């Protein structure tokens, strides 16, 4: 009989004919780590191989899951090699846990599939995009219907909290928008004066800056501010309601969530958008004046006169239309990702992220489309 027992080892092996005896001894603890199993591996691979394996735990003092783990590995090795295994010498408690782990190993999920062919991947993606587009159009349709019901007063009894939504979208956005618009106007003025001065046209700068602010910058800063502030809040609020099954509760009592949750938010943003653009325009022009007069030494009267010459209704209307569109886009993005968030624990965070990214992208896309449209209609 050959026995391998290292001093202090908790695992020993000995071979007698076709029987491999595995001895367990001492204290087994996860915090002390697992005993080296190289001797056991060698003994199992020996030639000629053993036909039977017997576990002997008479010298075992204390044990924990580390023993169950090793017994499981011995069991697996014996199964793989077709060896007969006798576990009767192992502690009954460890055997019960081992059985419990094996007993619950049911094929809860199917076997892993091979990677699908590229054509299937492309096809599935295309179907996914088409379904997603259909879902977005469905959302747009439902929102339009809800807006219609709201405007004709059919949802008045719901207590929509529309004034609050207006206040949140409007007054709540003023401080951050003031800072962004004032700073953007100032930076634009500085750059324009510096660059046009090199060409001898510094006095054209106030005109250029005023037109850019009215047509573009005021609306764009408003859109970005709304996306960051309201897109995220709307998505978070609605996603939290979905996770808490509040929207299901609304449907059960016969209230369409689009009437109560979506339409007031979208309408409030679409209405406040142009008003906020006016405010951003004023602050932007003020910023450009402050920089032009304060930093670049342009006489105030000249700067104001040149600016006023560029302030036409046409430019203002272009900016205001963009304000309506950006408010609508931000409202739709926040509400869409909020209501479509799913119910998982991470749903709210993902909804907010998707809403803000989509709102910012949507604002830029809408800006591009409207700019091209205004060029076409000579606005």
């Amino acid at each position, binding site marked *: 009989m050959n026995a391998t027992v290292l001093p202090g080892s908790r695992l020993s092996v000995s071979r007698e004919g076709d029987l491999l005896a595995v001895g367990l001894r001492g204290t087994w603890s*996860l915090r002390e780590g697992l005993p080296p199993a190289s001797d056991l591996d060698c003994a199992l691979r020996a030639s000629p191989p053993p036909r039977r394996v017997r576990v002997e735990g008479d010298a075992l003092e204390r044990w924990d899951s580390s023993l169950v783990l090793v017994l499981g590995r011995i069991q697996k090795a014996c199964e793989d090699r077709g060896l007969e295994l006798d576990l009767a010498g192992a502690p009954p408690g460890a055997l019960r*846990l081992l059985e419990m782990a094996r007993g*619950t190993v049911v094929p*809860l999920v199917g076997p892993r599939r091979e990677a699908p062919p590229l054509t299937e991947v492309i096809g599935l993606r295309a179907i996914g995009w088409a379904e997603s587009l259909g879902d977005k159009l469905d959302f747009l349709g439902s929102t339009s219907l809800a807006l219609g019901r709201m405007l004709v007063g059919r949802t008045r009894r719901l207590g929509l909290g529309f004034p609050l939504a207006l206040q949140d979208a409007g007054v709540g956005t003023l401080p951050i928008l003031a800072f962004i618009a004032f700073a953007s106007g100032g930076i634009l003025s500085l750059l324009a004066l510096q660059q046009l001065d090199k060409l001898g046209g510094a006095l054209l700068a106030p005109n250029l800056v005023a037109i850019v602010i009215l047509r573009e910058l005021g609306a764009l800063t408003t859109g970005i501010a709304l996306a960051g502030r309201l897109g995220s809040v709307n998505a978070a609020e609605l996603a939290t309601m979905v996770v808490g099954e509040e929207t299901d509760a609304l449907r059960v009592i016969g209230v369409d969530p689009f009437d109560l949750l979506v339409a007031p938010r979208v309408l409030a943003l679409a209405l406040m958008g142009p008003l906020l653009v006016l405010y951003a325009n004023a602050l932007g022009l003020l910023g450009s004046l402050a920089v032009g007069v304060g930093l670049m030494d342009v006489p105030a009267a000249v700067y104001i006169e040149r600016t006023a010459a560029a302030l036409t209704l046409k430019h203002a209307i272009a900016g205001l239309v963009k304000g309506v569109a950006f408010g609508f886009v931000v409202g739709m993005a926040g509400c869409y990702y909020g209501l479509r968030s*799913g119910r998982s*624990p991470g749903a709210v965070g993902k909804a907010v992220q998707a809403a803000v990214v989509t709102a910012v992208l949507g604002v830029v896309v809408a800006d591009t489309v409207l700019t091209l449209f205004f060029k076409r209609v000579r606005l």
Partner: protein
Amino acid sequence: MTEAPLIEIRGLVLTRGSVVVQRGLAFTVDRGRVFAITGQDGSGKRTLLRHMVGLDRPAQGEVLYSGESLWGGTEEDRERLKTRFGVLFAGGALLSTKSLLENVALHIRLHTSLAEEDVLDLARLKLALVGLAGFEHHHPSEVDASRRAWAGLARATALDPEILFLEEPTARLDPLAARRVDDVVRRLRDDLGATVVLVSSDLASLFSVADEAIFLDSESKTMTARGNPAHLRDHSPDPTVRAFLGGGQP
């Protein structure tokens, strides 16, 4: 000289902000027992659990483990004591960005020097023990609430803790799944020698696994009963305790 009880609560006063939730709590838990903390909603069961596992500092009183104060020593002492615990929070409280396997493995990796292969094998074993074999690579958001709770139990038991705290482990489970939890709790006590502190209002679970229970009363804001749950149900002098454990029957 007698050995100190595994857990001893001395004159504990629990507060939530400036509001006293419970006062005058005093009890001991012996090794190898399933000890239940029960009581009405809002009675402070969860608050007591948070104080016992070192998340909240008591306003007054002491929590002792084998005679060593949880809050009397240094931060390092407290961290060392906490390695003796496994905690299952209601719902599992799993890390949502990690797979179930990683949720369990992270705990093992942090507190042992096992090789990575052993860490992952042990994590798989722990998941298999609670019936989650095959779900190792799912994220918490991809499984239902009961499986999240099971995975939380696997994580709590990953290191074979000496003391296992379970908060409402059977909440939101169907009766069969709830009895499986009870079975696992018994196995942990009987086969791994764990001491279990169970915070629960599930009467079937209390009668099935708890050796001893205390009842926290929300009106008097203190512990009004202690004993075997079935005995308290039938013989407690406090009618609220009898009614609660009798399933609402006076």
